């Protein structure tokens, strides 16, 4: 199986490119072939992911281990094709592969206007390249390229297949995130030029590198704290806009509201995670001192996001926009965990990312299905879904419960340990500040129950509104069952057996946090 280990990550990232190329070669009229090829491609990619999952070394989940690839790439700028996967990236990689598959299945018979499956599926596959690549990259330039690669397909998905206000939303999405990326790139370059690494460690014996592993090992050595903080600012903006953190979140509700269902799912389930993943993978380990200085402020924005996102939800009349705002609140919990710089917090963040991907992805699917059936997402016009489409209604109820962090389902394990971690942040960070955050975040869980259950009540309970009375509403379609079953099952399985995920992430998280506290001396 050596051949597999050596090429696994390359396959995981670039198989979709092959599929995309084939899709592009098939004539537009042959829709069936296009769909089959796209589905097979995503399944093969997922198969590679499952292969990695079975051969991963769970006892040493911090090591990049046997899947690591480190080849020369752009020598002139000392950037290398360095790919590797640890226990933090692996769950996200698998999530990305899985979500792509279910999105293709879900789209099978419901391509949004202007239809064109060829373009749509090609973009999804291209998107997968960017997403998978971001989680595998171990070189800052490589990371940046993948990180930016996701922008284009998503821009077109919103801009071409989106709702009435799609142009505004897509350009806003693009420019807003690009603005952050530009500063992030600047910070990457600054890291390259300012951090000294021992020459004997780099492949080309140069004392500067884009290698994320080496930079993390250096831990910001030789940088005065003002420089560190400044470089961190660029990273922060790049990642925080992507997450999105308050007050950089305003692109999100518009993008979600206008995006086609599948676009929303991919956006919520994976794209947002690129930001939080960036914090864990790059910002924290490479600049530990700055991370500590910034932590109270990140924590502050996180808890503001929790409350503010919840209030935003309560003010919504559009189901999809409500779910979009709920992402702001949920990612607040993830960021709060990260800001504590503790194992509890970062583990919770990784779990929270996966759980949010599954749960909010599901909620967006449901919102799409509701819209397809009732041709509206206005909460005042909906009602009594449980009487007309009981299965869909119960699945909505299930996902609402999962989203509000009900123990026994996946959402809980991202939320509770994050709140717990805030009681006792890393050494050198104010306990009192974070304990206040803890209480505020805990209050946020009540508000989460508020907006989710009110939504559930308005959509599912009661009796159908007059305009839908007697209308035939089709309950679950086959494609919906197939697409949703794995997500629903995972929400339960991860909720009941959380160590499936903690067992994977914990070693790597402990390594990252341990590396930071070694540098910080606490």
């Amino acid at each position, binding site marked *: 199986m050596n051949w597999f280990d050596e090429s696994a990550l390359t396959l995981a990232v670039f198989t979709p490119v092959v599929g995309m190329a084939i899709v592009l070669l098939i004539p537009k009229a042959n829709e069936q072939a296009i769909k089959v090829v796209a589905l097979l491609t995503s399944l093969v990619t997922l198969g590679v992911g499952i292969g990695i999952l079975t051969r991963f070394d769970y006892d040493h989940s911090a090591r990049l281990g046997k899947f690591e690839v480190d080849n020369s790439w752009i020598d002139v700028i000392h950037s290398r094709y360095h790919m590797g996967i640890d226990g933090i990236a692996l769950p996200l990689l698998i999530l990305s592969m899985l979500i792509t598959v279910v999105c293709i299945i879900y789209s099978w018979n419901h391509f949004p206007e202007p239809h064109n499956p060829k373009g749509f599926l090609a973009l999804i596959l291209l998107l997968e390249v960017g997403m998978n690549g971001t989680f595998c990259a171990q070189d800052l330039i490589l990371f940046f390229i993948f990180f930016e690669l996701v*922008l284009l397909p998503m*821009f077109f998905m919103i801009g071409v297949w989106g709702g009435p206000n799609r*142009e505004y939303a897509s*350009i*806003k999405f*693009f*420019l807003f995130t*690009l603005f952050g990326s*530009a500063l992030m*790139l*600047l910070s990457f*370059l*600054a890291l390259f*030029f*300012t951090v000294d690494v021992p020459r004997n460690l780099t492949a080309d014996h140069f004392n500067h590198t884009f290698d994320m592993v080496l930079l993390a090992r250096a831990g910001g050595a030789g940088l005065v704290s003002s420089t560190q903080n400044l470089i961190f600012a660029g990273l922060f903006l790049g990642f925080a806009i992507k997450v999105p953190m308050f*007050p950089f979140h*305003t692109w999100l509700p518009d993008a979600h509201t206008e995006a086609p269902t599948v676009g929303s799912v991919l956006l919520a389930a994976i794209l947002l995670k690129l930001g939080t993943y960036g914090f864990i993978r790059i910002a924290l380990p490479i600049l530990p001192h700055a991370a500590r200085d910034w932590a109270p402020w990140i924590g502050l924005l996180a808890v503001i996001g929790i409350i*503010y996102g919840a*209030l*935003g*939800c*309560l*003010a*919504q009349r559009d189901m999809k926009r409500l779910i979009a705002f709920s992402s702001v609140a949920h990612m607040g919990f993830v960021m709060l965990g990260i800001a504590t710089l503790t*194992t*509890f917090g970062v*583990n919770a963040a990784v779990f929270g990312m996966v759980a949010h991907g599954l749960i909010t992805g599901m909620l967006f699917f449901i919102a799409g299905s509701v819209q397809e059936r009732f041709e509206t997402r206005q909460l005042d016009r909906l009602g009594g879904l*449980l009487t007309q489409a009981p299965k869909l209604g119960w699945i909505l109820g299930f996902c609402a*419960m999962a989203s509000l962090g*009900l123990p*026994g389902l996946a959402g*809980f*394990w991202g939320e*509770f340990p994050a*709140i717990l971690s805030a*009681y*006792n942040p890393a050494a050198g960070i104010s306990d009192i500040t974070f304990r206040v955050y*803890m*209480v505020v975040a*805990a*209050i946020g*869980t*009540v508000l989460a*129950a*508020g907006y989710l*259950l*009110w939504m559930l*009540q308005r959509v*599912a*309970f*009661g*009796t159908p509104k007059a305009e839908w009375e007697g209308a035939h509403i089709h309950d679950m379609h086959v494609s919906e069952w197939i697409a949703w079953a794995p997500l629903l099952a995972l929400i339960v399985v991860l909720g009941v057996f*959380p*160590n499936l995920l*903690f*067992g994977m992430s*914990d*070693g790597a998280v*402990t390594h990252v*946090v341990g590396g930071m506290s070694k540098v910080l001396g606490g």
Partner: protein
Amino acid sequence: MIDYAWLIPFIPAVSFVAILFFGKRMPKKGAEMGIAAVGASFVLSCVAAVQWINRVEDATGHKQGIRAFGKGLVSVGAEHEVVKPVIHNVTWWQNGLVKFGVGTQIDGLAVMMLFVVSLVSLLVHVYSTAYMKGDRRFTFFYAALSLFTASMLMLVVASNTIQLLVGWELVGLCSFMLIGHWWEEGANSDAALKAFFTTRIGDIGLMIGIIITFFAARTFSIVGINGYALSHGADHTLMIVGASCLLIGIIGKSGQFPLHTWLPDAMAGPTPVSALIHAATMVVAGVYLGARLYPVFYNGFSIGDGGVNAMALIGGITIIIGAALAFVQDDIKKVLAYSTISQLGYMVMGLGVGAWVAAVFHLFTHAFFKALLFLGAGSASHSGAHHSFDMKKDMGGLRKYMPITYVTFLIGTLALAGIFPFAGFWSKDEILVTAGHGGYTFFLYVGLAGAVMTAAYMTRCVYLTFFGEYRGHGEPHESPRAITGPLIILAAFSAVGGFINASPFGIEKFKDWVEPTFVFPALVHPDFDYAKAAISLTVALLGIGIAAYYFFRREEIGALKGLTQRNTAAHAGYTFLVNKYYLDVLYTDVIVGSIKGSIARAAYWVNQNVIDRTVDLVGIGARRVGRFTYDVVDQRVVDAAVNGIADTTGEAGGLLRYVQSGRVQRYALTLFAAVGLLSLALVLFN
């Protein structure tokens, strides 16, 4: 069984899944599955209980060790046989390479609860086959009952606080689902939401309490936390904060003042649910938490010192405010709901005054007689009042038509009122005696006042339901056997259940079997006090007497008739009670209304008009600058002046033109180029 206790919650959990997916295809629509599963759990619970009792009895005589340690908690010469709880754990999750377990902790308290929960649940399952017959969601109802039973049993056997939290929230979920069982009507789903939100407020306290106890004791294990709380090194301040937070959780779950308002609304659910969840089991989860982590409360609230503490005070207030509201209800289930609130107050107060055994004993007896009363009320409504619960409009005189329901309801009433020798007498009396003995005299009086009120409002309830003329419009008849059977069984427990701990007869089995001997404070167990028992019995009889005099003679004595209409003070008091102290107005209209309404709208306004507007303005500004640069700087100044290097300037102007034309990809490219240039500058000047 004691070593395989995980099976007890696991069986109903499997049943839940089976009913959910296959229930509709089963001959009895899933009911048989639920009954079989809970029946199996009940048998296993009994086996576990017997095994535990054997352990305790075996250990008697082998006096070893001291059961309490820590600051000032050791009572001199108190040597007791130690029976350790049986704990089994498997890895559940991990953090920082430390593994946390999930498992079972079986001791006297756990087996007692297992017995109560599985028995009442089984009876409710049987009862519902008749009561819920023909319901539009019969199968779903049984699935939810199974899930509830599984969650509650899981909560009971939990070996650590996280698992407790999981069970705690899951029973809350089931409560939500079952209160809103008939969700077509807005009032029912409103009640379900209210219950969920209110208990979630309490859950903030529970979560933070769990966090604080974790960081204090560095473990989630219940035994570990209790051991820490009793140790010399325990941080008293942390324990105060932790106990207070946990108390908030208890307040939310167990319907204590000021978060009790959800419980009466929860009566919107089917009556068997009210009996099982909102009387006998789920609502006592808070009390159970208090009993489970008692050392934390004992240390935090300094319970051994007497006087007043938050826990006893909350319980005491709840006794009175709950009982007072029970007087003004016309809905029989609401009378019982407020009665439950009041009785839960006794349990919490009991824990607060150091009467651990008495409080837990009251939990035990209350489960039987309150489930009995609810099921009796359901029987009266089902077969006597056309599914109405209005005592004044649709009941009255049912005594003649429903003898079994009447007699069993009467037994339940006597047990609740604390009349000798029914079950409630023993447990309530024990709380009062211990309160009086432990330096909590004030709470002794509160308890006595509550006893008068309890006896009185239950007399009113029995009078309105079973005496006088029948006021309904149907043809009342006795309920079928599936309903009367459970009533008779519960009546038997309510009648004689108290004798398991009847100290004047030298029986203290409940204390011996249930009170922990491992990591537990040394509590005082005062002897049976005949004087206090006589007083509490007298006040209960007094309550019955006053109420009976008022109701039975009201028509004959004009002064009593319409008292609240004529007397201003009585009328004001009546209005205050009917409006439930205006707490619902405060919560629903003022607090929730403003968060949901103006605060949320204001936040969203800021979002759209300040934060998002800033983003838009930046975009518009950039376009304006671009246009200006292109029109003025580029075209008129640069282009006109230096034609020779026009290519270069064209590029620069082009960059800005792309902004306004919205060609994003090229804009992106140029932006990268700009960043590249900036970084080049960084290199050059570094």
